[in-house]
């Protein structure tokens, strides 16, 4: 089995197991029906609510593969919503609002990248700065208020619209995943990112532009965080600077790790990160829906169960642990 496949096995297996669990414990999970002109089922809901994390996880995969990390993506989401809501207040078109928000978020990504590549600030510190400052900036843009979007605005289609029965956020996330996969595999960008993240010194020797490669990863991350913020704002029809994207950077990093991309950089798998993001998101829904003898799982257990499942997936991936277990088994036999 090629290396790239073997790393995908565990996240996909865990996801399949979780879905199978759902099929048994709460059969309505897969129950598809039409409501309000689109397909509805808990499974679709998972994808719909998980769209922002999916988008973040895509960008985070590239950033981590290039040897970095981005803690600011949740705050950048808040900025995107705030900018879009402000632009919409001026009676500008939805397209203008989207363009303005994405431009600002691209700039935020570049800012992170420049701090890291040219100023030499460690990635965790550089993006921590924007994580804290970004939410403040979003609050400044909204004057600390929740700015609601007019009910009739075309902008809301991003969060609530549907095409071919699929909700818009799901389509956007899938389109972004497709476009990004094509972009990194059809150009040399994916190889450059894996090379820079795998061995920076050797990449420099080979004549790679290490800085530009890192910068590109952060720029793409900024754009995707902006997209995630727009989806979130359109979904709730408001820009909530305090809560939009809160803690989502952690879910995104988790999704990447579960997906088999090493935090130390190098090889990456966008498909793995997608599986990781869906796994994280469907866990919450699974826990909510699961019934045991007519009783549901207490809400307080949510985070603990989530952590336990994530831990198990990570342990399954650990080659050290597998080696240890093999040795024990041999010692016993």
């Amino acid at each position, binding site marked *: 089995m090629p*290396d790239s496949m073997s790393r995908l096995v565990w996240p996909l297996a865990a996801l399949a197991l979780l879905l199978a669990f759902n099929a048994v414990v709460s059969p309505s999970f897969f129950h598809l029906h039409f409501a309000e002109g689109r397909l509805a089922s808990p499974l679709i809901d998972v994808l719909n609510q998980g769209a922002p994390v999916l988008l973040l996880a895509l960008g985070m995969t590239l950033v981590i593969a290039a040897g970095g990390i981005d803690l600011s993506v949740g705050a950048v989401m808040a900025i995107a919503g705030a900018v879009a809501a402000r632009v919409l207040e001026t009676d500008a078109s939805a397209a203008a609002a989207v363009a303005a928000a994405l431009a600002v978020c691209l700039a935020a990504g570049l800012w992170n990248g420049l701090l890291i590549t040219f100023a030499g600030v460690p990635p965790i510190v550089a993006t921590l700065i924007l994580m804290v400052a970004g939410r403040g900036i979003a609050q400044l843009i909204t004057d600390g208020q929740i700015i609601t979007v007019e009910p009739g605005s075309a902008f809301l289609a991003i969060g609530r619209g549907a095409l071919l029965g699929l909700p818009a956020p799901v389509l956007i996330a899938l389109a972004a995943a497709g476009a990004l996969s094509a972009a990194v595999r059809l*150009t*040399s960008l994916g*190889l450059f990112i894996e090379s820079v993240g795998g061995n920076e*010194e050797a990449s420099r020797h080979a004549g790679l532009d290490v800085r530009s490669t890192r910068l590109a990863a952060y720029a793409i991350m900024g754009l995707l965080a902006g997209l995630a913020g727009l989806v979130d704002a359109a979904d709730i029809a408001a820009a909530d600077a305090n809560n939009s994207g809160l803690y989502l950077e952690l879910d995104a990093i988790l999704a990447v790790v579960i997906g088999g991309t090493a935090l130390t950089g190098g090889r990456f798998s966008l498909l793995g990160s997608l599986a990781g993001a869906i796994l994280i998101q469907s866990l919450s829904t699974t826990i909510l829906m699961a019934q045991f003898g007519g009783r549901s799982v207490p809400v307080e257990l949510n985070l603990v169960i989530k952590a336990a499942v994530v831990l198990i997936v990570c342990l399954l991936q650990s080659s050290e642990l597998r080696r240890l277990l093999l040795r024990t088994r041999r010692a016993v036999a």
Partner: protein
Amino acid sequence: MAHALVEMRGIVKTYPGVRALDAVDFTLRTSEIHALVGENGAGKSTLIRILTGAERRDRGTISLDGAMIEPRTPLAAQRLGIATVYQEVNLIPDLSVAENILLGYEPRSRLGWIGWGAMRERARKVIADMALSVDVSRPLRSCSIAVRQLIAVARAVDQRAKVLVLDEPTSSLDAGETAQLFALMRRLRARGLGIIFITHFLEQVYEVSDRVTILRGGRCAGTHATGELPRLALVSAMLGKTVERAAPPAAVKSPGVAGPRRECLRAADVFRRRAMQPFRLSLYTGEVLGLAGLLGSGRTELARLLFGLDRRDGGQIRINGRLIRRHSPRRAIRAGMAFTPEDRRTAGLIAHLSVRDNIVLALLAARGWAKRLGKQERQAIAERFVRSLSIATPDLRRPVAQLSGGNQQKVILARWLLMEPTILLLDEPTRGIDIGAKEQIESLIDELRARGMAIIFISGELEEVVRVSGRIMVLRDRAVVGELAGAAVSTADVMRRIARPAAEDGHA
């Protein structure tokens, strides 16, 4: 009267497949500075690691002050009075000088609190004892590397050390800083300490040491009073051959070259502080220029400056007639240069990437990220070079880390050959690879030269440099000290040039 302080007898250490030390004897006296020299793999570090408890010996005995000792950890060795200062100073930059000197030995009050005043006082006394002048409350970070080095020595000596091991302490110091360290070493010697001084700099061996022990291939190749050992004898002992019997060049270089020769690389007064003295170099198409010198003589530093890996502090470099202003590997590559680094694994290969991706990496980097190369084209290029260089790999998708050393080296060569460079810098291309692969690479070099490529060839193996090169630049102590040309050049000539005292360099 000086007596034996440390006696190591019949030390044997075997690693899987390698006998690192083969019955080595080593004696350090009180009040002496004892230089320990040898090329790569001679066993210097292994011997020191055994003395300082970082490694266990397989056989042999160690005694300190006449009593048998058995240091199992560096800490245990320290308690016995054997202190070590490594090249990479192991101190904590964010703590103050005083804290660094007394870390783990802080003066405590009866309640167990640290007495900060007493600590600074004590540190000040230690510093003054060594005739240094440093504000002990400054963070170590604000001190130069040289001062940190001195502070590391101060810390070691304050812990009542009898033996001080200095592992290449001068490799990143300039002349003034080195003099400061030597002054401190001499003061410590006067106090009765025995100092083991590991260095690659021949001049420094003669400047500061009383005796010198030479290791070669895991054996002791002699211990001598430094003043009585001629330089040439020292170099011969390190390289393992006598000047009289030095092998003649195995093959006479064929002068046949396609096309007229032209100067394709010129460096004028290029230098980098602490790394390389100003040097001049001209390289012509269709020639192999060898760089010869002992380990640490500046061979690699010179190549790194030419390729733009290290920023030069002055001087001019022209590649194919073009003046290179803001030098970088990217610019060097664009101008037609290629470089295979000494350390394949850290600087050459991207270990987790496939053989194919490693081969096409430089080409893709030069084309930019947007100009893709189809999978089939990449495959075809990689296949062509795997065949022409006979790289042994089960398939092209195999991670390059799984290949043998010789095949890894060929993968890097393939990466550069497909760029069709005019200038090829090869830093230790044959180190750690088997004989067969080595011969293949040597004949490839000659083939490329005959096709008109200009090659700079670096190797620690003198015979190889003489065999492969048409012209040889000799380096010593981070400076170019001479040039030898012609088919009659022998390893003995090169050794004589390496061994000549610095004072005579001016008049060749």
